[in-house]
């Protein structure tokens, strides 16, 4: 048994979405103890000591982020990023639908830790049904005196509000999310200042992903040392891996970080159980949805933790593993992904808006068989020119990953699709011509 259910507790306790069942499992114990007996700094300290890293993609240590919030500026806010929109990611939805109280308790603990009295949970607009479940859990928590005014007889008060987005991937970028929450276009802000100082309504704000905060209640209840018994020194705890694509058993799997390899996730009996079609091999693995470079079959023995996946030339990010077998046309796959980014580019900065447009334009030309060698070269050039801090936010950088990584590992497939120009595409009609 490789899986460990720190967050996906419902896999072991079916009715845990009900308050009574959640409490029987030790739920809200940490919360009650925090408001009655702990100082805000003690909560931050235990989360810091646990080494919990942000699960939304960047992997930044959560406790450290919380400690950046100034103590003497009020009001402060907690904003939960439940905009889950990365292709291949469906873990936050399962947490919200199946174990909502653990999220609510995590949000409350985070709010207490920074002494915020309002928290907003921003869910993507498509999460209308999950939002109903989460709102029911929040209502239950209010009725039980776990939220609201003077919680558990303390002088601490907290309101948690749900906010639904309306279909925009960019709102998963934390500053775009803040803009959206303020009723503006979901476009990213310049950083610094960082949200910890100037966030929602220009007040100090902590923004964390749903999965990150769902980790907090067991950490506060059982201690940092217990949490560190899972995972590695640098990547402590468990992580939910979203497995999708051409495997027999796609789904969410919660595993201690650094314990299994990509190969195990795809082929393991308690995980993907191998490829959907018999007799095929793995051609490409996307470890973090459309945003991370594709890894070839030779990377299957990479361990699943932040450092190992980065060392293999990609990133763990939101850990949404999309598996492609040897029948997949990688030019088609890259086109699909760039189509996504072009659709979701917010239009604020030129390199991303124009770059995604031209990459898609070239990819479609090549994919449809109308491309020439020079189009392949220009495609690589456009992607390279978007890198190096030219784009306003990471969406632009990420949009180049499918292009650069498929050109690196599967250049032969591009070559097979294009006609060679007489000069090989590098002369006067080349990319710079």
């Amino acid at each position, binding site marked *: 048994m490789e899986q460990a259910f720190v967050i996906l507790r419902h896999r072991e306790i079916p009715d845990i979405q009900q308050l009574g069942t959640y409490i029987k499992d030790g739920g809200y114990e940490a919360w009650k103890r925090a408001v009655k007996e702990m100082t805000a700094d003690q909560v931050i300290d235990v989360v810091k000591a646990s080494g919990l890293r942000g699960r939304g993609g960047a992997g930044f240590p959560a406790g450290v982020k919380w400690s950046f919030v100034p103590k003497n500026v009020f009001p402060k806010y907690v904003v939960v990023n439940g905009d889950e929109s990365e292709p291949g990611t469906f873990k936050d939805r399962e947490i919200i639908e199946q174990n909502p109280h653990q999220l609510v308790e995590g949000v409350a603990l985070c709010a207490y830790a920074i002494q915020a009295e309002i928290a907003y949970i921003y869910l993507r607009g498509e999460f209308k049904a999950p939002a109903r479940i989460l709102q029911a859990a929040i209502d239950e928590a209010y009725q039980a005196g776990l939220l609201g005014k003077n919680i558990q007889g303390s002088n601490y008060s907290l309101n948690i509000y749900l906010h639904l987005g309306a279909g925009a991937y960019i709102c998963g970028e934390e500053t775009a999310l803040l803009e959206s929450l303020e009723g503006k276009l979901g476009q990213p802000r310049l950083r610094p200042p960082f949200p910890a100082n100037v966030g929602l309504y220009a007040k100090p704000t902590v923004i964390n992903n749903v999965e990150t905060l769902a980790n907090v209640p067991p950490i506060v209840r059982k201690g940092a040392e217990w949490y560190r018994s899972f995972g590695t020194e640098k990547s402590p705890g468990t992580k939910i891996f979203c497995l999708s694509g051409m495997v027999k058993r796609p789904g969410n799997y919660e595993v201690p970080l650094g314990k299994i390899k990509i190969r195990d996730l795809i082929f393991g009996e308690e995980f993907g159980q191998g490829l959907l079609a018999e007799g095929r091999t793995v051609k490409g693995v996307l470890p973090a949805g459309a945003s991370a470079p594709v890894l070839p079959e030779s990377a299957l023995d990479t361990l699943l933790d932040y450092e190992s996946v980065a060392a293999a030339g990609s990133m763990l990010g939101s850990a949404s593993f999309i598996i492609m077998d040897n029948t997949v046309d990688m030019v088609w796959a890259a086109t699909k992904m760039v189509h*996504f980014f072009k659709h979701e580019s917010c239009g604020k900065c030129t390199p991303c808006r124009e770059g995604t447009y031209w990459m898609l334009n070239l990819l479609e030309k090549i994919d449809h068989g109308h491309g020439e060698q020079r189009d392949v070269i220009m495609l690589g050039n456009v992607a390279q020119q978007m890198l190096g801090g030219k784009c306003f936010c990471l969406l632009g950088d990420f949009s180049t990953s499918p292009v650069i990584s498929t050109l690196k590992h599967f250049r032969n497939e591009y070559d097979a699709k294009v006609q060679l120009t007489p000069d090989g595409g590098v002369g006067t009609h080349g990319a710079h011509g």
Partner: protein
Amino acid sequence: MMTSLKSGNILETAAQPTTRLSESALREIDGLIKKYATKRSAIMPVLYIAQAEYGYLTHEAIDEVARILELDPTEVLSIAGFYTLYFTHPVGRYVVQICNDLPCALRGAEKFVTEVRQELGIAPNETTPDGMFTLEAVPCIAACDNAPCMQVNLEYYEKLTLEKAREIFAQLRQAVKG
């Protein structure tokens, strides 16, 4: 078209501004506004309410939302235009959104979209002549493990086949008649 957009705050001598939102919607909006530090923050939930009551975000709907939130109608329209779940054009009673992003496409979503197109007799971004269904092919909806998948008016339907989709459409048609 622009006349109606501006009628709320520029052509003040024009006819009385439209107020179509119901009493209960206005009460709900009052409650919503209290959740935020600024009125403007309530624009997304308020647009959803207006969309539900007007059918889609007509210029009158935009005007009414702008008046309630004390914003310029063009600002409200820019928000409605930025986010894909707001409709500034008429849509069917049911908006069918099928994911054909990479993870779903690897599990037959493109074939499924084609089948549904044929079943409903419309291309993506079109509405059936009876006004019942609008079809859209959309990016990832966080149901990749249960592909092919779709949302109808934002409710999930997963692990789909054409047969299942047919049943769902029939039930939805029935629900309207009943």
